[in-house]
């Protein structure tokens, strides 16, 4: 019988590549967000000064988990003691693992609102542009989703914004 060996799709990154990822992430932290740049969530833990940091970035595709962690922790060197957990995921991994369970979605009908305005507003709130032209705006906590929902209602009330929650299966 043949020997069938699985192969990991993630490989160790070179020091140069890691430095490049770290620099981009550090820049994204301190400056205005870039369209293809990482999406960063800093989630405060209750009764603590610590945060969980989630970085959603398709550049992590094929990068080992330990390298992702290191890139994030290095980019947060100034606040390293405050990081309770660092987690790097691609967009698809975030969806598959229910890391961003709260989606803010427009319920407007066609013609009620300018789609370009809608798209721009969602991207500026951290929405991820999908290949089919849609924007997926998701958050790891209800509080973050509610804050974005509030801002979007103020900015584009004709968007009829709603929050939906994806629930992981519970047997």
């Amino acid at each position, binding site marked *: 019988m043949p020997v069938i060996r*699985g192969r990991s799709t993630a490989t160790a990154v070179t020091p140069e590549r890691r430095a490049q990822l770290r620099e981009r992430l550090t820049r994204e932290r301190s400056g205005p967000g870039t369209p293809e740049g990482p999406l960063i969530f800093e989630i405060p*833990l209750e009764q603590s000064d610590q945060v*969980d940091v989630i970085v959603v970035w398709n550049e992590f595709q094929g990068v080992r988990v330990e390298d992702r962690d290191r890139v994030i922790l290095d980019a947060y060197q100034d606040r390293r003691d405050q990081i*309770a*957990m660092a987690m790097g995921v691609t967009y698809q991994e975030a969806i598959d*693992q229910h890391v961003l*369970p709260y989606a803010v979605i427009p319920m407007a009908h066609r013609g009620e609102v300018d789609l370009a305005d809608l798209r721009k507003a969602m991207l500026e709130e951290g929405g991820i542009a999908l290949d089919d032209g849609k924007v997926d705006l998701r958050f790891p906590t209800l509080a973050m989703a509610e804050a974005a929902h509030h801002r979007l209602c103020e900015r584009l009330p004709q968007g009829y914004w709603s929050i939906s929650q994806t629930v*992981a*299966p519970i047997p």
Partner: protein
Amino acid sequence: MSQAKSLADHLSPDSVNRLQRAAEQRVEDANWLMAQNRFLAALYFFGYSVEMVLSAAYFRSAGFSPNMPIDRDTRQRRMAKARQLMMTTGQPLMEGDPHPLVGWARFLEWQRSALRELTAREVQLVKEAIRNAGLVYKHWRPELRYKTTQVMPDQIQEVRRAAIWFIEHRDDLCGRE
């Protein structure tokens, strides 16, 4: 209209202390059920008690203070993290199962090892936790609640021994004062 207040509306969020206390209570419930020969229901509760001790130990070792709230999103995030991690065998540390007893035990080992080098005694303790979690998971599944399967005395005894081991070692598993 019912005058009884909604129980569901008054549930506190989980914390390390509450999970540990609930684990103890479920073991007490399970022991009582066992004495009534209700082995399946007893096994069902023993399994959940193990899950609670292990997740409490993980969160405590990850720096959560005993009364710090552990909400559903936080728990989900930490489980997602565990599912990213791979063992040296190439298998994920925690499987996709929503109640992964062995996965929690391995995640606890990973978390504790990430903080500092473990002593030989601590290594032995977490290995024992993984072994006992495996023994419980050999028999326990959440869907047992829908079943009428007969549970044999040796099966319930195996699960009970492991569940009691977890209760007895719950503080040691946390690795913190």
